[in-house]
């Protein structure tokens, strides 16, 4: 039941990415190309998502716990630091080059397109590189 629910929720997300056109890198890249072949659709996707999620989150977080788990797992980080800003800027650089973001690419895997698989493989490799870099800096700054 738990897995079925998780699958169904993933499916709703995947359908949303497909219906919205955000599965298409050409469309995503055109959102960023304000000076060229601009396509503002992505702003409408964000608006549609937030119109549902802002009131939805408010309602959900009023209950003491989620339906199938003991507690909500919410990020508790508050600090706005260079890691957040520069990491996000780095993400934007890659997004602007490839046209895929993680949330667009995972549903796009289902189309079988070769480039999507290349992207996701590279994405995972990048995550491992970051994990390795962080473990090194942690050791360097905080010797145990």
């Amino acid at each position, binding site marked *: 039941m738990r897995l079925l629910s*998780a699958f169904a929720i993933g499916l709703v997300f995947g359908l949303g990415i497909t219906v919205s056109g955000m599965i298409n890198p050409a469309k995503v890249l055109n959102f960023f190309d304000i000076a060229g*072949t601009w396509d503002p659709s992505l702003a409408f996707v964000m608006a549609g998502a937030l*119109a549902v999620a802002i009131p939805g989150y408010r309602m959900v977080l009023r209950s003491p716990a989620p339906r199938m788990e003991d507690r909500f797992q919410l990020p508790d980080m508050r600090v706005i630091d260079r890691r957040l800003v520069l990491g*996000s800027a780095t*993400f*934007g650089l890659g997004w602007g080059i490839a046209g895929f973001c993680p949330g667009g690419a*995972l549903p796009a895997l289902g189309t079988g397109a070769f480039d999507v698989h290349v992207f996701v493989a590279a994405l995972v490799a990048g995550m491992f590189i970051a994990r390795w870099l962080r473990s090194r800096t942690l050791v360097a700054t905080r010797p145990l």
Partner: protein
Amino acid sequence: MGANAARAAAEICGTKPMETEFTPWTALAGGALIGSAAVLLLAVHGRILGATGILGGLFRLGDAADWTLRAAVIAGMATGPLVHLLATGERPVLDQPVPTWAVALGGLIVGVGVSYGGGCTSGHGVCGLARLSRRSMVATASFMASAVLTVFLIRHGV
């Protein structure tokens, strides 16, 4: 001259701009589905629907129940295009104006960036903004501005 120069620059960088139709209604509808999925995942499983977080956790083994939940969400996501095809008879359009090497390079950079930034468009841009998180507002502004600048430099700069 500007257009020709931009086209030449874009060709050097391997990118040819492609026109896409502005689709406000399907964008809003698809967005509403994305938002609904985010609300449902929080309501039922108590989690943030961030593609980075869900995918990243797949490579931290140890908790089998957690792992299967993440895998189920991702499997559901990847089934989206198939269900869309069955329901509408239409294959989703997927045009890639960028060569494969650039997709690989971009993917690598995205992987590093989202790890340090702690999330991507779905985690920060939808779920974080929905929680009115200041961190997510800063992250979203940062990656959007950076993507606009990147595409500008690739397509119109040089």
